[in-house]
């Protein structure tokens, strides 16, 4: 039982570390700028990509999007971004995901 608990804790820690590491190195504010400039034109209501906001996914889902999915519905959409650009966008989406730590405001 103790071993099971230890393994569970290790798994949780590893997952948490993976989450953080995947989005490390990005500039969230720059990511917001790039997202609005380059992603939003196709990702608003009525446009080709449909409405997309950071709140549409969890942090884990956003990380998976950048590590695994890589915009597979239209891979060429990411071609014009540098690796750093993608890190920045990933960081912005991660920081504002539905389960992110960004608090609600009042007023």
């Amino acid at each position, binding site marked *: 039982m103790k071993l099971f608990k230890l393994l569970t804790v290790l798994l*949780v820690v590893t997952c*948490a570390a993976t989450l953080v590491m995947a989005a490390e190195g990005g500039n*969230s*504010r*720059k990511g917001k*700028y790039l997202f*609005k*400039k380059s992603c*939003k034109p196709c990702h*608003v*209501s009525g446009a080709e990509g449909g409405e997309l906001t950071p709140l549409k996914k969890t942090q884990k889902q956003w990380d998976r999007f950048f590590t695994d999915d890589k915009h597979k519905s239209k891979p060429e959409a990411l071609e014009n971004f540098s690796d750093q650009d993608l890190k920045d966008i990933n960081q912005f989406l991660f920081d504002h995901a*539905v*389960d992110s*730590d*960004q*608090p*609600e*405001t*009042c*007023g």
Partner: protein
Amino acid sequence: MSRLIDKKLSRRRFIGTSTCALAGVGLASQGRVLRALATSEEPLSGKLGDNRDVFTACGMCVNKCGVIARVRDGRIYKLDPNPEYLKSRGMLCARGNAGLNQVYDPDRLKYPLIRVGERGEGKWRRASWEEALDLVAKKMNEIAEKHTRAGVMFASTEGTFQEHFFLQMAECFGSPNTVRHPTLCLSSNIQGFSATFGTYPSADILNSDYIIMAGANRSEALLTPDSIDQLKGDGGRRKLVYLDPRFTKTAAKADEWYPIKPGTDMAFVLAMIHVIIGEGLYAKDFVATTTVGFDELAAHVQQYSPEWAEQHCQIAAADIRRVAREFAKAAPKALFYPGRRSSFADDDVQLRRAMAIVNAIVGSWDTEGGLVPNSVIPLSKHDYLAPWYDDVPERIDKDSAVFLSEKDGSWTAMRDRILAADPYAIKGMMVYKQNLVMSVPNRAKTLKMMKQMDFICTIDICMSDTAWLSDVVLPEATYLERQDPLESLSGVVPVVAFRQPCVEAMFESKPCLWIMQNLAKRLGSEIAETFDFTMDEHIHHQVSKNPQILKDLKKKGVYYLKVEPSYGLTQGKRLKTKSGKIELYSENYASKGLDPMPVFRPHAEVPPGKFRLLVGRNAYFTHGTTANNAFLHELMPENSLWLNPQAAQKLGLRNGQPVKVKSAVGEGVLRLEVTDKIRPDCVYMAHGFGVLSKGQSLIYGRGACDAALIEDALEPISGNVAMHQTFVDVSPA
């Protein structure tokens, strides 16, 4: 269930009563005000025969209640509540009624002003908008050149429906250093509830059978619809249990009042959880299906018995046990009210977590009479692309709190970093509506921070203390003179609010959008392009997906989708927590080194001979903004210091005498009010007095300023200020 629609007043019935009651007051006071304004040599005559009833929304506090402005001969004659406006239940309070004085106040700002004497000396010269805005743009650019664009900070607060234009200016100018009111307000509360439920919910007070309020003085700190619903109840079976070291007007309306020892509310709540779990009174199915961490919680609260809590909070164990049982029995139509105020102490997030948890374990979530996640009516947002500047650093207060809002910041943490120029210098301040000199604890530090600024510009409707200490002051049109964007107000029953000009803007006052657009033109085309729209275009864009909103607003002054609450909308859905469920135990907190469940740690005791300074509201004033309103000033011309008779006798002080109150950071002189309405170890004073500005002629030299006395203790999880950790000496003045 009480039907909200039944709460609406018929317009005929309301006008029949309220007009008669207040017409005399309005006429007499307006005559005096207009005479005073006439001394400024401005044309005051309205258009004869211009008689209209105009739908708008109140701007006197945070609530935005529905208003009908009665315009007679081109002047606002009286403000009435809008009976269609569900959120305010057909009510307009004293502050709302006094709103017309914002327009006809002789003290209001009339023209752009440029300082000519020393800061705070009160010497100004009238300037044209062109000259004033040229100067503001020049100073902003100079500071940006020298210190990057982060060298200009932007302070603002909500309520005008135009604050987002000011924030747009901050973002487009390129400064990350915006600072708003939440860390003087709800940020710890929001954090505590959000960590548990993934959001900060509303309370379905109207349909609740059992309500516990801790320091939420809802009968005076008005919040619509809660304040009204709290008094109405349903069938008389409602019970209100109230914890507060002061006997407020909410205490007067409560079934039970406990003068709890400040700083120990968490002990009371943890003991309630102890009883509810220990006696098996919790909602077992709800807990099993909707929450995580119950086993950990059950083990954790074993230590917190009512007998243990009694030692800390000075409420009898038998009462705690009985209240816990009654609360669980009434559940799920039972509420431990979330409260709506700034932090009590530096563990406030964990207190709010405990409050959230006690609601959760009895199933008071997304159900009639319980906590209800807010609904909102969507409006299309104005989107823009802010320019990117490579050399701008991160927020100056980055990492000063565990959960720091990137838009709101942390006021006191930010001020400390600015004072230390750590990690860089901020030398310019743009201020919109926020009266930070009066609002941020430890006024001496705020004054020091302002002193080291190269430039300060304030936009406001009156000469607040912050405006008084600025270099350029820009007059905004009041809420009764402006067309504002539509505002979607979330709640159990959400509405869209509407604000349109009742009269033309007086003197040279202008709306925020106009000010931002004309400043943007001076800051470059890239910024100006983001403001290239009219207010009319903006509003039509907001309703582009649902034009009916605007039609209803024009017809009845409010838009709503439904008149009854909807419950259970989150059932079976993922909540915005890490686990997707209600988190009694927070893995997220644990991973950040925080207590995953609330742990009670006693606060410092009041030192012998001293008193704990309490803050709190009354129904007349909104923070530091309305004490100079002539109508409200008559209700409370100055503040006083509440002191218990036992303590007064011990100090040899008598009712009405001036006393000096001194803390570690400041002092003030005000009149003593000896009263049984406060614990012997505490003192209390109303906010909004002791001003520095001679531009607030009614209250200058009256009373004392609480911000001068309160120390700036920080709640480290949310970045909020801790308001109840200041001890003061009281002596004859």
